[in-house]
């Protein structure tokens, strides 16, 4: 790179003709610095989760990073203890049992509804859609007490069925909104020609709309999965902290309460709660980002 200007300009011509080499370098440095700053808290957690309690108390985790190859300082016993003795393994299973149906059920319902809003005409359509969009911002807290009463009356409190239903109800507005945005943008000619060929709405939905909407379905699935997996409030209210049903965030919060200074356990436990979201997120980042943008870019 003889001079910064042409090299940079080649990246995307026009936009940054005035950026000097110095400017370019300082921008990179700034970005890297922010990225490091954003990663340090999580890194501290991850590093500490592999250190013994004595080590954590004796030196800061950053000092352990200075000698990464002294393998004797690293240990997996923290994970062994939180998974078995502290019940995180059970909570992990509970989280899976809560999250998978609570993601699959709303997608099914929302896809049908989004199709109807986009491609069927019926009285009250605009009003109903506006209502659902308005519900996107109504605080969940408005529903907590009445739904709790309803669940108590129907013996659904503390059951997986109850929390699936709650998450389905709470997640539907966003699901309908996101899927509508996508499905309504599908080319109308497709539906028309299928309709002329004698396909029913149901056939169009199943054979054309669902296959074409996979990216949007995936986006919402990731949203809902992360939201349900990470949720603490709804889990505490409708499922509780009993070890037979408690999910990971609820169990983690219990540990904070009972073992607040046992950092070797807390760090390992916190990381156990994050493994699945990280994996989902890193593998499916593209769909997630697409969904975020579709949900909030406004002209």
């Amino acid at each position, binding site marked *: 790179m003889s001079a910064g200007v042409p090299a940079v300009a080649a990246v*995307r011509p*026009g936009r940054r003709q005035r950026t000097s080499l110095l400017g370019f370098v300082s*921008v990179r440095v*700034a*970005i*890297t610095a*922010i*990225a*490091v700053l*954003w990663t340090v808290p999580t890194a*501290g957690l991850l590093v500490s989760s592999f250190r013994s309690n004595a080590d954590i*108390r004796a030196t800061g985790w950053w000092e352990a990073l200075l000698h990464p190859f002294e393998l004797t300082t690293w240990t997996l016993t923290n994970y062994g203890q939180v998974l078995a003795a502290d019940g995180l393994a*059970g909570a992990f299973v509970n989280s*899976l*049992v809560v999250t*998978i149906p609570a993601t*699959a059920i709303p997608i099914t319902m929302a896809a*049908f*509804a989004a*199709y109807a*809003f986009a*491609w069927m*005409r019926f009285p009250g359509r605009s009003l*109903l*859609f506006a209502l659902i*969009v*308005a*519900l*996107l*911002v*109504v*605080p969940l*807290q*408005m*529903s907590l*007490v*009445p739904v709790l009463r309803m669940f108590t009356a129907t013996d659904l409190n503390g059951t*997986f*069925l109850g929390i*699936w*239903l709650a998450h*389905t109800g709470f997640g539907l507005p966003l699901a309908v909104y996101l899927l*509508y945005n996508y499905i309504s943008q599908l080319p109308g000619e497709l539906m028309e020609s299928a*309709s002329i060929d*004698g396909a*029913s*709405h149901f056939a169009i939905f199943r054979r054309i709309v669902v296959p074409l909407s996979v990216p949007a379905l995936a986006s919402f699935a990731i949203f809902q999965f*992360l939201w349900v997996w990470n949720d603490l*409030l709804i889990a*505490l209210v409708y499922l509780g902290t009993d070890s037979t049903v408690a999910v990971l965030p609820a169990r983690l*919060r219990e540990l*904070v309460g009972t073992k607040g200074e046992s*950092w070797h356990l807390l760090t390992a436990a916190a990381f156990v709660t*994050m493994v699945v*979201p990280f994996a989902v*997120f*890193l593998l499916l980042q593209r769909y997630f980002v697409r969904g*975020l*943008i579709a949900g909030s*870019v406004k002209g």
Partner: protein
Amino acid sequence: MTTAPLTRRPDPVGALVRVAPLAAALVGLWLIVLGLDVLRDPLGADRVWASLYDVLGQSATADAIRERGLDAVQAKLTTLVVGVVVGVGGIWLVYVGLNAVADLLPRRLAGAVRPWLFVGPAAAMVAVFLVVPAIVTIWSSLSAEGGIAETYGALAEDPEMWVAVRNNVLWLVLGTGGSVGIGLLIATLVDRVKREALAKTFIFLPLAISMAGAAVIWRFVYAWVPESEPQIGILNAIWTALGNEPVAWLQAPPLNTFALIVIMVWLQTGFAMVVLSAALKGVPNEIIEAARIDGATERQLFFAVIVPMIKGTILAVATTIAIAILKVFDIVYVTTGGKFETEVLANRMFTELFTFRNFERASAIAVVLFLAVTPIIAINVRDLRRRRVGP
């Protein structure tokens, strides 16, 4: 938009074609009823396996399960599978079936009924879990013993409530401003370099972390130990290295509320960055060029050209984050539990609900939260109309 549903089938096969989906509907309905029965029964999973073995002719194994019960994990995974099969398969079959029933109706009537089959289940769920409860909450906060004055008057006399309101305002202003401001800064910086993905991923990653997890991460960052011992929290390590005494960041008001807001900013900045990045990419190069030719400085270019062009997106991002922040609960609940003057409305409501079992008061706090977002709801719906989004 296409309109009337047009189902016209050749006749001879028609009858059979119509009976099959009807059967599917009945199967779906049966599946749902059976599934709900199994799911509501604490021993449902055991019953499923026992009947399975009975069907396979291994009644000895079936009896063993009935007697001793399943292993806990197997029982839970069974619940999971039943949930997905019923929740997706059952619902799908019901749609198939109801659709077939609609086909049997005269065409006009079918056209009128069918949209409601598609929208109905979702609308019913939303009504049961959001609309009706919201109305009930408002109603019960108004009609509580002693009436409005009593409920809300008591709320207004509670000093903790005012701490919560003050903190919610702080959260709203600093949390939203911080996330959007830093997100916009990073998006602008990233827009200037070619390879951006990796740095962005690192800033974005906290978005996948639960607030409870983030609370633990940051409790460790803010960890405090007496001066005589080595500091294990990175913030106090830096702070003491600069020659200061260690600070209990989470216990000392008003510092602790700011420390908690930092957690939210850390979580939400990635979201703002990604969406604003996409908006920046949409600003046409010609406009930037034209501004430069006209002699605009970089600063003028940013504030007078770029920011106004992406104003809509900035507003949308700010709204989304503001709503999330208003309802913030987990961070406060897990770090301080609302002690040391860090209370917020959502945590207050949870305390009223579960510690004091005061449902009227909890409802009243929910209504306060709701009133705080009503302007946003109005703006959203008006905006939707203006952009002609939605049917």
